[in-house]
C-alpha cells in the first residue's frame, strides 16, 4: 500500500497563515493503515494546529473529515458542503487524494499535509519498508519475488554489484542486498539457473513514467 509521513507541523502552519477556517481531510484507505492520514491522525493534527494557533493568539477553526477513500471521486465529492464553508483545505491523504480533491474543488486552496513516500509493506506494527516502485512491467517472476527496482539502491537488473558485502548493501549498511536476497530465494526454490538469464534493460520511456503520467483504460468498466 501507499505509505506516507506527516509533514512537519511548522510547514503546515506556514501554509495556513492567511486562513482562519479550514477543512482537514484524511483518507480511510492506505494512509489510515500507515497511521499518517486516517481519522485518528486527523484528530491529532487538528488538535495540534488549533493549539499552535491559539498559542499565538490567532485561533484557527478546523473542520475534520475522513472520507472512505479520497482518491475516488464519489468519496471526495462527499466533502463538497464542507469545502464550501472553509477558506482552505489541508489533505492528509496521499498525493493522489490531494489531486482528486483539487480536481473537484478548483476555487479552494488545497494543501498537502503528508509526504507520500513509497509503496511498501508493514514489517511490524510501526515499521514500513519500500517494496514496489510501480515501474510498469513486473519482473518478480525472474527474481524470485524480490524486486531489484525497489530494493536495490542501484536498481540493477543483473546484480549483484561489487559493493554487496556479507549480504548488506554498500549504500546503506543496514539494508539487505536485494541481489543477495534474490540469490538466496532462487537457491531455496532450486531455480539458481535464473541467475544466468540476462534481464534486458528496462524500457523506462515505454513501460514507466518517463514519457509522462500513465493511464489505464478499461472499456468494459466505463459507464
Amino acid at each position, binding site marked *: 500500500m501507499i505509505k506516507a509521513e506527516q509533514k512537519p*507541523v511548522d510547514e503546515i502552519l506556514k501554509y495556513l497563515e492567511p486562513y482562519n477556517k479550514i477543512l482537514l481531510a484524511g483518507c480511510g484507505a492506505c494512509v489510515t493503515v500507515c497511521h499518517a492520514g486516517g481519522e485518528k491522525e486527523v484528530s*491529532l493534527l487538528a*488538535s*495540534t494546529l*488549533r*493549539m499552535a494557533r*491559539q*498559542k499565538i493568539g490567532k485561533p484557527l477553526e478546523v473542520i475534520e473529515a475522513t472520507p472512505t477513500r479520497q482518491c475516488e471521486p464519489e468519496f471526495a465529492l462527499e466533502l463538497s458542503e464542507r469545502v464550501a464553508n472553509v477558506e482552505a483545505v489541508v489533505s492528509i491523504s496521499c498525493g493522489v487524494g490531494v489531486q482528486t480533491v483539487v480536481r473537484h474543488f478548483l476555487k479552494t486552496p488545497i494543501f498537502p499535509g503528508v509526504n507520500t513516500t513509497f509503496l511498501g509493506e508493514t514489517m511490524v506494527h510501526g515499521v514500513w519498508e519500500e517494496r514496489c516502485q510501480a515501474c510498469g512491467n513486473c519482473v518478480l517472476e525472474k527474481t524470485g519475488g524480490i524486486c531489484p527496482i525497489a530494493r536495490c539502491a542501484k536498481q540493477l537488473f543483473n546484480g549483484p554489484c561489487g559493493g554487496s558485502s556479507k549480504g548488506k548493501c554498500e549504500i546503506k549498511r543496514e539494508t539487505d542486498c536485494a541481489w543477495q536476497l534474490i540469490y538466496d530465494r532462487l537457491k531455496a526454490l532450486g531455480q539458481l539457473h535464473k541467475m544466468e538469464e540476462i534481464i534486458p534493460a528496462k524500457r523506462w520511456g515505454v513501460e514507466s513514467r518517463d514519457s509522462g503520467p500513465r493511464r489505464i483504460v478499461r472499456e468494459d468498466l466505463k459507464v
Partner: protein
Amino acid sequence: MSDFDPKIVAFCCDQSGYPAADMAGNLKLKVPQNVEIVRVPCAGRIETIYLLRALEKGADGVLIFGCYEENCQFLRGNFRAKSRLSYASQILEKIGLEKERLEFCHLATNCGVKFVETLQQKSEALKRLGPNPAKIA
C-alpha cells in the same frame, strides 16, 4: 500568578490509579482542588488524542496514573500509554508547548500517598510553568 490554580486532568487506570485515588480519599489526604479524574479500564485505553484534547479543552497539565512495569493486567497497556505520552510530548514540543505538562506515574492500588504527592508536585510544577497558553476553552 500567585492565584493561579492549575487544572490537572488525571487519567487513572482501573487496576491501580483509581483504587489509589480511592485510598487517598479514604485516608482523607489533601488532593489539589482543581483535579479532574478520568477513570479508564487500563492505561492502554488512553489514546494520544485524549492527552492533546485535555490540554486543548482547558487542562494545564495531564497525568496518567498507570500500573508498575510488568504489572499490567493487560500485559502492555502501561507501555502503550507511555509510548503515546511520549508521542504527545513530541507534538507539544513541535508547537512550542512544554512537554512537562504531560507525565506518567507508575503506582499500585495501595499507593494513595504517592497518588496525592504526585498530584501536589505536578500542581506546583505547573504553577511554575504558568497557564497553558494553548487552551481554547
